[in-house]
């Protein structure tokens, strides 16, 4: 016990000293703290990291932020909210970062956003989809880049409502993301199509779907259309069982995120055709902004971008734009700069709304198809985020007063 206390002190000293060494360097550079689930979700976070590294390189090549070099200090949270907070604390207390960015999982995004509120730090959430982060549990220190659950649902509902199908079933992972995706989709869909009946719902545990019985149970309810929210390995299992058992034959399927290369590419030649999905068809976007991004990305990594690459790239680009506009690292000035700021992106110009701090980054909606033994998105069109958000009056009601 005695010896142990000394280790403890030694560790403390070491950490304190390294902290001092860091702050001496801080004059000529601006630091952004970045947190993500690198070890838990490498399939998404690897391209994401490549994306933001490209952004950092471009920003510094163009002279940095107000003449100062931009440095991103990146930490892994291992998929645990508590560890994300430890990392956030280290970034703020020891690394003296100007702002926090990143996070993937919704609960981690919320944990860091609550930390940001308590410690009065600017936080730009990159990936988390939960509506709570900008609405029910929103706070003035937190901004979010990716189109939220609500926005993705609204984009899909627009297409789904055109389908003749009346009997619908849902399959979604049993956690907040799946639950709220289904709830929003059902609400918006029933508003547009009061004639619809919901005949079955399946809630397999995230990452542990027992696909055979689930597919069989959905088939037994005999729906005309299916809403799918599963992704990753669960999606692969669901698609394989569904294909073999003929679940998707003569049925329409609407599916969240499935068009993103992260989730579509692993399906290879088993990609089901004709699903209505949100995603990122990097191969068919023909705009100058995207061409420039694509060329730079492929030149640097000799690989194609995933949606994560876009999110990582745009997170740091937005952060840099906010820092440049604010001309300061004071959180209040950053908030003032970020509210309403317009930033260029590979998908065209986006802005961060003053009312709820949500960015207007959109997503592509299209249909899945098979080409040369690989899954792709066809008939794609870009949906601007701004068109799929509720009215300001509704948002006012959703967000807590401060």
């Amino acid at each position, binding site marked *: *016990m*005695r010896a*142990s*206390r*000394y280790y*403890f*002190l030694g*560790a*403390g*000293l070491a*950490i*304190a000293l390294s*902290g001092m060494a860091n702050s001496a360097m801080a004059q000529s550079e601006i630091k952004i703290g970045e947190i993500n689930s*690198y070890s*838990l979700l490498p*399939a998404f976070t690897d391209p994401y990291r490549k994306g933001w590294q490209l952004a950092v390189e471009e920003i510094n090549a163009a002279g940095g932020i107000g003449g100062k070099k931009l440095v991103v200090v990146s*930490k*892994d949270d*291992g998929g*645990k*909210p*508590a560890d994300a907070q*430890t990392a956030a*604390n*280290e970034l703020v*207390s*020891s690394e003296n970062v100007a702002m926090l960015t990143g996070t993937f999982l*919704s*609960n981690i995004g919320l*944990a860091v956003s*609550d930390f940001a509120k*308590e410690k009065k730090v600017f936080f730009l959430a990159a990936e988390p989809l*939960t509506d*709570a982060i900008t609405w029910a549990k929103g706070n003035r220190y937190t901004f979010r880049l990716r189109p939220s659950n609500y926005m993705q649902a609204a984009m899909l509902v627009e297409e789904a409502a055109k389908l003749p199908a009346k009997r619908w079933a849902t399959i979604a992972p*049993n*956690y*907040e993301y799946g*639950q709220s995706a289904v709830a929003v989709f059902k609400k918006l869909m029933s508003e547009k199509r009061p004639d619809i009946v919901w005949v079955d719902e*399946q*809630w*397999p*545990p995230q*990452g*542990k779907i027992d*696909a*055979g*019985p689930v597919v*069989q149970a959905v*088939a*037994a309810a005999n729906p005309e259309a299916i809403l799918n929210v599963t992704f990753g*390995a669960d999606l*692969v*299992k669901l698609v*394989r*069982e569904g294909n*073999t*058992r003929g679940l998707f034959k003569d049925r329409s399927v609407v599916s969240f995120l499935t068009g993103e290369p992260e989730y579509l590419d*692993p*399906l290879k030649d*088993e990609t089901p055709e004709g699903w209505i999905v949100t995603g990122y068809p990097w191969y068919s976007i023909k705009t100058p902004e995207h061409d420039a991004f694509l060329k730079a990305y492929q030149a640097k990594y000799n690989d194609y971008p995933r949606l994560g690459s876009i999110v990582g790239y745009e997170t740091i680009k937005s952060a840099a734009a906010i820092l440049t506009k604010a001309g300061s690292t004071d959180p209040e000035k950053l908030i003032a700069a970020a509210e309403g700021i317009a930033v260029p992106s590979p998908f065209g110009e986006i802005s961060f709304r003053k009312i709820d701090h949500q960015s207007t980054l959109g997503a592509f909606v299209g249909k899945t198809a098979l080409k040369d033994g690989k899954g792709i998105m066809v008939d794609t069109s870009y949906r601007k985020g701004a068109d799929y958000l509720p009215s300001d009056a509704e948002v006012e009601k959703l967000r807590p007063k401060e």
Partner: protein
Amino acid sequence: MAFYVVQFLTGLASAASLFLVASGLSIIFGVTRIVNFAHGAFYMLGAYVAFTLTERFSGALGFWGGMVVAALVVAAVGVLVEMVLLRRIYHSPELFQLLATFGLTLMVEDLVVLIWGPNDLLGRRAPGLKGAVDFFGQNIPSYDLFLIVLGPVVLGILWLLFQRTRWGILVRAATQDRDMVAALGVNQKWLFTSVFAVGVFLAALGGALQIPRDAVNHAMDLRIIVDVFVVVVIGGLGSIIGAFVAAVLVSELNAFGILIFPKISIILVFLVMAAVLIVRPWGLFGKQEAAARRTPGLTVNPWRPLTSGERLAAMVALIVAAALPLVGGNYALTVGSEVAIFVIFAASLHFLMSVGGLASFGHAAYFGLGAYGVALLAKMAGLPMIVCLLLGPLLGCVGAAVFGFFAVQLSGVYFAMLTLAFAQIVWSIAFQWVAVTGGDNGILGVWPEKWVSSASHFYWLSLGVAALVVAALRVMVFSPFGFALRATRDSPLRSEAIGINGKRIQWTAFVIAGTAAGIAGALFAYLKGSVFPDNLGISLSVDALVMVLLGGVETVSGAVVGAIVYKALNIWLVSQTDLSKLVLGGFIVLIVVAFPKGIVGVLETIRNRRRSASSKSALVTSRIETAE
């Protein structure tokens, strides 16, 4: 009607894959008494190796041959692990092998990403079994039919192996009574190695067979390992038929359960396990474990209270620790608070595990209940912080009282698994009851009040509470209650004969440990400002086990050292590298080999050896020899 038949067959197919992996685990445990946490890692390796082989060699021979070769390759890896690592630690304290296999699991998770890349991999479909068979308008995948047949075939082969071969007879004998088998001159080394190889082969084969249905990914191991443990325990440890029946039971209940309660999958196996263990304490087909011949009391150095010099030293150490705010910044202090909180948590598990002899696999439940207690009181009732801190842990206390009552009726691994089941039930309530607990988005905004909101004040609070709790638990170890508890641990029959009510003593210890864990959880909620279902989860329970084992399960202060070393190292590694699991796993494996009794255990042995050499105390020397 056809639908129900097909649903039944689908359940059987799921059962077959579960059974293959579970049977391997069951055999390994039965003979070597190793709780092989790495079994899931071998399953995953089997899938990855099979993926590579089947991509490389096409055709029916390439596919089926690839599966078998993959399982053989992984079995060879298993043999290597057994010979290099596990052989060194068979004589370590119970469950120490769990630590080694846990370290391995961590390493494998990072290694597969390094070798095979981060993307999910889609394996080939089985040649000839790609389609489905029509059954009165319902489709049954032909691969499912193959699995349905394969399960009983493997069961039959294993049965023949165990009933009709000399090796099988030895394995069964060792399962019933290993000491007797050793005394009869059987070469245990090779028996254990061969059993381990067979077990790993089955796990890897189970993984390889998933290729046509699953996506090969780096999280496969965690997905299966807990379920497999549960299946083995429901069936009865060491019983192959039990594992088969349990796999079928669990899979069918799931297949039909989701028709009525679509959200049942998340908790089903644990509900079944809790129900089975309460009714049948040794699983469906298990028998009561033969009483261990070695009296554990003789294998440890006798415990004694601190001498006055050591007490003084502990006080000095505490004062030095309390001086950290003079030199450390905010981050160091927050890490310090977190370490102090985990010292409480580890000490509480240590009290149950080392003093009470009851290893809990679900101790995080009481930590998390304490945290949720605080969060609910603070957010819903709006009580002041000091009241929350005092009342919050009571939720942990109540939880421990209820679950402990059932759990202490069992012992050994069955006790451990019942605590795990209870913890998972509590976890799923926190996860599902969105209206109260916020589900997996948790409860936010549980920040400390002004008087302790600065990092240094909170650090002093955590350190002070940690010192008090550790001291209190230590006093209890050397109180009459502690002696009664240790007596019950070391010899239930003798302690009963002198009038000790063993079950009640153990129950009390469970409640004390649960309450102490609740105190840690309560502080943790304020440290992080939020509470999530994670705080009740399996990985936190495993962390606590690792801390106690790392420090030394047979020592009095091991938990404190184990918690400090593990937590500080963990935080540092996660901050420094994305490969933290690989490094941490490697470190644990090294510790296991270098300190086969835990850090404090080995230090104490060295010190005692020195002391006994100088004082020539014959009694102490002989005891230590028994220990080795």
